[in-house]
């Protein structure tokens, strides 16, 4: 039985569909990445799963509980951990007292072990916390009652790279211990690093369900190149570049090929400086999944078929 089963889930706000007939499953013992640009509808899905908002149509099951059945959903929450994107803690309380408060509602058998990995300043009031400390306290409260399923909304936002790595390693260990992790992110590389399977959402619609191997081939980097002399756009362009912009001697583009190939290519130019960073997710999605791509329902349920659906889109939608 899937840990999360999302079935034709739709949430409308007036004319806007924040979630539009979203359908997919999350299996036990996997790290499932829910990838999409900001505002795509990731948080809406998560808040629907937790029963904070009600679906316009369709439904979902969390650990076997229908999200429309409030009583059943409340009951399974003792086995669910949740890390929201915005952490609304009691600002005047210390971290320790906040954890005490949550412990009274659902237990804290793993608290000490987690506090060795993630160390927010427990004796300071939360209003003095940095965003990284807030996030760490959030991670501790999400896992401290040893839940079967943990739902995390942008878990690494605010964490420094070292802590991000620590979290990713921790998530992998949890997965290996049989836990299920559902995490949303707008950072492609994060999902590529840590997830087993990925659902991609754009404008409220699920556009693809991918095994991570497929997604690994679909990476991209935002590249800025500063050259010694102005360059001709046509001479510089390769097939792997999208959204190429040339301004005098500065070139910006999203590169969808391999890093090695790009570096070898750039050596042929008189390069003054190079910056390579995370891509704009939306550019990458447009490239791989086209502008109006959606997963048809059958393939979304099985997941495996969706991979081939995704491959088709590369051919049809690739720019």
């Amino acid at each position, binding site marked *: 039985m899937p840990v999360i089963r999302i079935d034709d889930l739709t949430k409308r706000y007036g004319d806007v569909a924040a979630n539009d007939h979203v359908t997919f499953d999350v299996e036990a013992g996997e790290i499932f990445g829910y990838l999409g640009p900001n505002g795509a509808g990731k948080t809406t899905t998560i*808040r629907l799963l*937790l*029963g*904070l*908002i*009600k679906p316009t149509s369709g439904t979902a099951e969390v650990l076997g509980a229908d999200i429309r059945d*409030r*009583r059943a959903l*409340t*009951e*399974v*929450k*003792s086995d*669910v*951990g*949740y890390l*929201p994107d*915005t*952490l*609304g*803690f*009691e600002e005047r309380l210390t971290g320790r007292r906040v954890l005490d*408060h*949550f412990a*009274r*509602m*659902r237990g804290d058998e793993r608290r000490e072990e987690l506090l060795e990995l993630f160390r927010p300043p427990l004796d300071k009031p939360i209003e003095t916390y940095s965003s990284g400390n807030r996030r760490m306290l959030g991670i501790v*409260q999400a896992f401290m009652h040893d839940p079967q399923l943990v739902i995390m909304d942008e878990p690494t936002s605010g964490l420094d790279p070292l802590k991000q790595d620590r979290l990713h390693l921790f998530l992998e260990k949890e997965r290996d211990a049989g836990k299920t992790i559902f995490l949303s992110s707008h950072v492609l590389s994060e999902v590529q690093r840590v997830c087993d399977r990925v659902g991609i959402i754009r404008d409220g619609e699920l556009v693809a369900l991918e095994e991570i191997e497929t997604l690994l081939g679909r990476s991209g980097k935002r590249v800025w190149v500063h050259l010694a002399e102005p360059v001709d756009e046509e001479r510089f362009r390769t097939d792997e570049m999208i959204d190429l912009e040339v301004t005098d001697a500065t070139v910006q583009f999203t590169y969808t090929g391999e890093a090695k190939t790009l570096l070898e290519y750039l050596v042929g130019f008189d390069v003054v400086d190079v910056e390579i960073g995370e891509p704009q997710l939306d550019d990458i999605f447009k490239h791989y999944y086209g502008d109006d791509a959606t997963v048809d329902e059958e393939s979304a349920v099985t997941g495996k078929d969706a991979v081939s659906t995704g491959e088709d889109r590369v051919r049809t939608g690739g720019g």
Partner: protein
Amino acid sequence: MTAILRNESGKLIRSSLLLTGLFGLISVFLFAAFPGFADQAEVVEEAFPPVLAGLFGFEELHTIEGFVGGYLFPLLWILFGGMYFAYVAAGLIVGDVRTRKMDLTLSNPVSRESVVLQKVAALWVPLVVLNAGLILFVLAGVTVLGESIDPIALGMTHLLSVPYLLVCAGIGLVLSVVLDREETAQATALGLVFVLWLIDGLSHLDPALEWIRDLTPSRYFDPTAILVHEEYALADAGILLVTFLALVAVATVIFVRRDI
């Protein structure tokens, strides 16, 4: 599951103590004015425009009972106390929704009904602190002035005032689940309780307005009647209690159904 009750109770201690201290301060001023007041009670009663006399329900102002019931209680308890309870209750839900605290709260195995009820139950803190504080202030004030007051009547005044304060809290609570800004809910609750108190007072002026008076909660709590005449209006207190329970029920039903 009383974790929320415990947490919310802790949060209310500070403001309860603060308001109690403020009540103490005002009590000192009011009692200090009593000797002069008692001497000139007749003049005062005549000099006050009937509008103001009606607002406070002056009666037997020259006696300590009349003074406490007709002056101190209406001002401190019915007006300020009522407004405080409405204000606090108006922040109970909407504030947490707004700051996303409610997301974390509801990620626990706790129902929305339980969240509302535990938050309302936390109002025991201001109820106990304010009542105890004011009883002490009144007894101290009366003793210092060399007067005496029937402790049973005083106790009954406080007991029968609890349903009134709870109705004010119920009004705030409903606003807290309906409106989506904490400041708006609190300001509306404050304003509404004040206007209801005003309507109750002003409706004395004209018998034609009597019906509208029945819609105000302060109409069902009369400290002067209790202290001066020892009339305990238990039925009126019952009406207030039922109203409070109905308001809590309405708030719960709305909160359970809405998106947060």
